[in-house]
């Protein structure tokens, strides 16, 4: 199988986007998180088992920038949960071609540890981002980010986005 042609500049831009996204969450700058998405952006978190079986529901299922922004305000102003933080470790993005909208399909492995208020560090999730990237006003954004977790088990709760 032949990989699609992708320039090193494009690869660098995609890698930077992935890293900026992870830094944003890990540094608790959630207010900036929605800006990674296009206005019609879609974000969901599911499991590999559901993904394989084609089951549509997500742990989180956000369609459009409004719902994506609401996730942040809910975490900040509405929901009760214990303070925690993530550290994302990302793999190299794999560029998988273009989808039916002309967006670039990219898959990137991730590994997330969660640090809880009492100081404990746990492996929280591993999986793969299934992304569709689109250039908007010169900046790469997620038109679609489906977070496919390898396990369907979530310890206690999934508060912060992955």
């Amino acid at each position, binding site marked *: 199988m032949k990989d699609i042609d992708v320039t090193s500049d494009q690869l660098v831009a995609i890698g930077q986007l992935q890293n900026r996204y992870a830094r944003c969450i890990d540094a608790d700058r959630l207010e900036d998180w929605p800006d990674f998405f296009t206005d019609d952006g879609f974000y969901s*978190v*599911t*499991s590999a*088992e*559901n993904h394989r079986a084609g*089951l*549509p*529901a*997500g*742990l*989180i*299922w*956000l*369609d*459009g920038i*409004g*719902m994506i*922004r*609401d996730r942040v*305000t*809910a975490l900040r*102003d*509405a*929901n*009760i*949960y*214990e303070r925690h933080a993530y550290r994302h470790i990302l793999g190299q993005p794999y560029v998988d071609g273009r989808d039916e909208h002309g967006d670039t399909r990219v898959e990137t492995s991730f590994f997330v540890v969660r640090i809880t208020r009492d100081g404990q560090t746990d492996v929280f999730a591993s999986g793969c981002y299934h992304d569709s990237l689109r250039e908007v006003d010169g900046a790469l954004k997620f038109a679609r980010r489906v977070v496919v977790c390898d396990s*369907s*088990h*979530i*310890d*206690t*709760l*999934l*508060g912060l986005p992955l």
Partner: protein
Amino acid sequence: MRDVAERAGPLDDWEGGVNRVPYWVFSDEDVFRAEQEKLFRGSSWNYLCLEVEIPNPGDYVATHVGTTPVIVVRDFDGQIYSFENRCAHRGSLLALDDRGNARDFTCVYHAWRHSLQGDLVGVAFEEGMNGTGGMAEGFCKNNHGPRKLRVAELYGLVFGSFDEDIDDIEEYLGDEITGRVKRVLDGRDCVVLGRFTQILPNNWKLYVENTKDSYHASILHLFFTTFELNKLSMKGGILVSPDGGSHVSYSAIDREAEQSKAYQEEQLRSQSDYQLADMSLLENFKEFDDDITLQILSAFPNFVLQQIQNCIAVRQILPKGPDKTELKWTYIGFAGDTEAQQRIRLKLANLVGPAGYVSMEDGCIGGFVQRGIAGADDKEAVLEMGGTEFGNSGNRITEGSIRGFWNAYRERMQS
């Protein structure tokens, strides 16, 4: 402190009524072991799976009754059978996947073969080879096999019990609660939309209490109160099964009621000015003939059927240890849902599950209790909202259905 040596039964130190719950029931190893024997392997109906998950002969789901692994499978006669997921020979698991299709269950260890009804039907080299070896004289396959469960089907839900003499499930739940299962599921084919497992850092009974706790829902959960999904000032009530163990809590649109000032007066955090940018999250469609917007139903000991607007899910509560529980969510829709209706269900599902705007809070609250009660074996929880007994109630400012659970629990644990 509890003196373990002087106890004959695991609950002997529980002297008061169901309005007081000693904290050690949530952490004691002996209690946990006794629950497995007396509740889960005793006189209770345990949720196994949805009928629609095993439509064809050979389709199976591997799950648990308490901590006991079980298989639930449809045989070629069209009937559903359930038996322990345990080889009759040396005890190995028979099914190694959570779901699948099988012609029989042959153990990978020594190839002992079990039928889809759980009978031992084949022993590798039973007669030995060339006249030597083989099973001892007098060994009879019919006398061996995993324990079987009695199976009941209720509007597309499959339950199992290790107690052959248990009441029929309709009688066990009582007419009112059976009617509320029917209300949600009757005459429709479920479609599974997704499955997720939430690992709770607490005793399983703390989560059961939480699902039965109609008092907390609009106080802890801002989404319920602020968006008028479920408030104590709405029309509603609770129904409790005759033994107390199963319940329904519901709220309904009160078309005549004025906006209640009660929440402002209590200065509750959950009555807030919080707003959503995209209110389509909470869109819904008319699905039922009544005005009930929310119905939480539990079947003793560990099953929940949830309707929050059009968000329907079943929850299976599986104990893994005194302070560890698996909460298995299955989100469902129905055959015949339009694309628009399914989108509404998928959006509303943001309220529930491990990441849900409502349910994430129930995911951590049990852990707060589990950690809070450490070192407090001589203390007890107070359950006196709405009185000291259990039974139906025309309002939900009550802990009546939690007291009912403890009644059913103590009856079985002390039997």
